[in-house]
């Protein structure tokens, strides 16, 4: 059997694009198009997922990606990732420090009294998970009144701009290993270099920072359920805006060029000691991502800790295996592989059928001869 070149489908593909566009606009006169700010605010968590999984902090384009993909987070992240691949790389920032984060939410599961206090911010943690039926037919007036009331109630709040980190207190108490605060090694750039294992921890952090939330959660969950032994305690989970500092082209002075909303988590795990002379200290895991996505940051921090163990002692379960974790958490990669099965496989499947028929014929001949 030879390969048969075929063509066709162009008209149908154009029709499919038109049909999708019709589905987006099917409300007709009773509908109105979503604007970018509406998506950013009212679909905050979906928007955050797309920002981080797309690997590009561009709130307006993330909204556009959500809009054009009709809310499919994988497709939206793909569009953002495709956009970034068309742009030149101009610079990298100096190493930014999240202790400057302008916090909007900060909690700790390790201590109730943390310096600066715990602030819940905007969260679904305490939602009753009952349907809010009053939103079924929400009036624009009621919608606008919420913000008006919020601003009306504002008072003078003597709250600092930034807060110290919980892990710094633990470190000061000698419960964590000392770190090299001046460490300046060049991180691994996953957008420029292929991952050939073993890879440094910076490659793992970068891969997970733009990994797909569900994939990270699934593998971290395997560790939580027993295929691992991280047993994490959330030392601190924070959501806030990190100032992006860039040098002024003339003076060289670092100036704030913008800010990035991000989620960050540090988990404390089992204590360990390298050798008998060392003081035992807690080990740590770290997670961070663009946008407000707490599940992702926590899952990443657990996987960071499990991968550290796997890199050091060799993996004993999937969540400790860098190759297993890092090659399976990217949403664009995995979605692409999965959906490619929808593409024509006419020749390979024809070959499969030919082999099956041949095998069936041989089996029948053998049966007849028996």
């Amino acid at each position, binding site marked *: 059997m030879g390969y048969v070149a075929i063509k066709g489908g162009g008209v149908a593909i154009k029709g499919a694009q038109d049909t999708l566009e019709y589905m987006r606009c099917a409300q007709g006169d009773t509908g109105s198009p979503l604007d970018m700010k509406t998506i950013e605010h009212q679909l905050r968590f979906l928007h955050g997922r797309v920002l981080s999984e797309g690997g*590009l902090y561009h709130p307006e384009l993330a909204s556009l990606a959500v809009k054009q993909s009709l809310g499919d987070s994988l497709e939206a992240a793909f569009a953002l990732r495709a956009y970034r691949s068309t742009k030149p790389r101009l610079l990298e*920032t100096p190493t930014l420090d999240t202790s400057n984060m302008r916090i909007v939410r900060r909690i700790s599961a390790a201590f109730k009294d943390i310096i600066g206090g715990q602030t819940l911010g905007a969260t679904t943690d305490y939602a009753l998970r009952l349907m809010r039926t009053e939103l079924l037919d929400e009036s624009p007036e009621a919608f606008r009144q919420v913000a008006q009331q919020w601003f009306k109630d504002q008072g003078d709040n003597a709250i600092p701009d930034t807060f110290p980190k919980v892990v710094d207190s633990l470190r000061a108490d000698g419960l964590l290993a000392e770190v090299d605060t001046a460490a300046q090694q060049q991180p691994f750039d996953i957008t420029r270099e292929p991952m050939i294992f073993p890879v440094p921890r910076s490659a793992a952090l970068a891969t997970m920072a733009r990994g797909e939330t569900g994939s990270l959660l699934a593998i971290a969950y395997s560790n939580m359920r027993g295929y691992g032994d991280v047993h994490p305690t959330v030392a601190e989970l924070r959501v806030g805006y990190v100032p992006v500092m860039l040098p002024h082209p003339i003076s060289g002075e670092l100036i704030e060029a913008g800010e990035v909303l991000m989620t960050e988590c540090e988990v404390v795990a089992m204590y360990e000691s390298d050798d008998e002379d060392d003081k035992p200290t807690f080990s740590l*895991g770290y997670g961070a991502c663009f946008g407000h996505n707490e599940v992702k940051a926590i899952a990443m921090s657990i996987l960071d800790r499990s991968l550290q163990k796997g890199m050091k002692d060799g993996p004993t379960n999937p969540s400790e295996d860098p190759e297993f974790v890092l090659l399976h958490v990217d949403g664009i990669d995995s979605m692409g592989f999965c959906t490619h099965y929808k593409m024509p496989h006419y020749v390979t499947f024809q070959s499969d059928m030919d082999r099956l028929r041949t095998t069936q014929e041989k089996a029948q001949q053998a049966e007849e001869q028996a």
Partner: protein
Amino acid sequence: MNIHERKNWVRLLMAVAVDDVCQLAEQLTQDWQLRYKSLPQSGLGMMKLRDGAMNEPFYLGEIPVSSAWVELTLPDGVVAEGAAQVMTDNQDLAEAIAVCDAILANDLPGHEQLTALLEQGAGHITKETQNRKQMLARTKVNFSLLDAAGDDDEKN
């Protein structure tokens, strides 16, 4: 925030409407010569972060970046330079902020109008900062022991 410090100008100008910055920069320089010290460009920057566990640097992801470096020549022959690197893919905005940087840093004509724009930006930033602090103030947890008289919820 000190609006007279150069390090704050980009943040302050980014807080006002893009059109306002671009229009004022264009209006102030319409009779001046503008030369690019380096061509305005837009693209991406890789955001490098220090992780909170081991203090190791890693790349969190990319951000849009535009930059511009201009030289202004006034009708009386005065020459001034300004530049900006901003987190946007709007190249025109980066150029306008570079023009503002030159005017403000060299006290060129128009710096009063720009100062008014900086004050406007400071107002927006203050409002946003208050908004964020309101979120923190309203959701600060006041722990108390179970047997203590009254609790957080009763006090509120």
